[in-house]
């Protein structure tokens, strides 16, 4: 490649020129405004890449939160069904205790009847033991 000196620096915006220095370096020449645009875009893209990474991280965190919330729902659902079972068990216990009360009340009723009967027998026994000898004596005399 032949080395050419820089001939002109009058470049309009949007225009890019190439020139080769006497030392053989290829120079790409563009207006300062265009260089600013390129640098601005490059830095913005660089930041956009970082933003994208953070969005990905945020997405992952949100996904993690959703999974944890699903776990909470499952956990609460399990607790709920367990408590329902506990309630059913308590209801069954209550029913059984009602049955126990009915049976015990029946026993108490029968025992009360028996006690009344035995009290009557006791009274009759005492009365008989007093009246019968007297009556026998009266009849004999």
């Amino acid at each position, binding site marked *: 490649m032949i080395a050419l000196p820089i001939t002109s620096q009058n470049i309009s915006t949007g225009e890019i020129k190439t020139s080769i220095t006497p030392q053989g370096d290829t120079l790409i020449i563009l207006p300062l405004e265009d260089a600013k645009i390129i640098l601005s875009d490059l*830095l913005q893209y660089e*930041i956009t890449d970082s933003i994208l990474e953070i969005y990905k991280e945020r997405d992952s965190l949100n996904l993690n*939160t959703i999974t944890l919330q699903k776990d909470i729902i499952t956990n609460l659902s*399990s607790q709920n069904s367990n408590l329902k079972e506990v309630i059913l068990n308590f209801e069954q216990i209550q029913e059984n205790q009602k049955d126990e009360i009915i049976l*015990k009340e029946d*026993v108490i009723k029968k025992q009360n009847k028996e006690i009344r009967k035995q009290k009557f027998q006791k009274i009759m026994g005492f009365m008989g033991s007093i009246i019968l000898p007297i009556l026998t004596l009266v*009849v004999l005399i």
Partner: protein
Amino acid sequence: MKLQSNIQLIFIIVLAGALILSLIFRPSTPIDTYEDELRELEEINKQLGVSNDSIILLNVGLQNELQEILLEIDGTKVILQQTEEKLKQLEDAKTEIPALINNMDSDSITHHLSEYLNRRN
């Protein structure tokens, strides 16, 4: 005659008394105390109580897990908050770039372009 009649009367009275007493003191029918039924019901209730205790214990475990999950969510919320702040900073920086670059001279532009290329490589 009278004595014989009296003896008959006493005999009759004694017999009547014995009859009345036998009726009064007849053996009573045994009272059913439902012991088997009551024992069975108590056994069932005991088992249900044990089952309830196990379920409640299970729920305590689930509640502990829930607390751990809630703590984890709180931790995630803190990280999310930090992420949001980072995002805001980057968005602000991105917005500020054109204005900053517009105020730069050619040396700064060249310097920043070189820095970028070094980072890129």
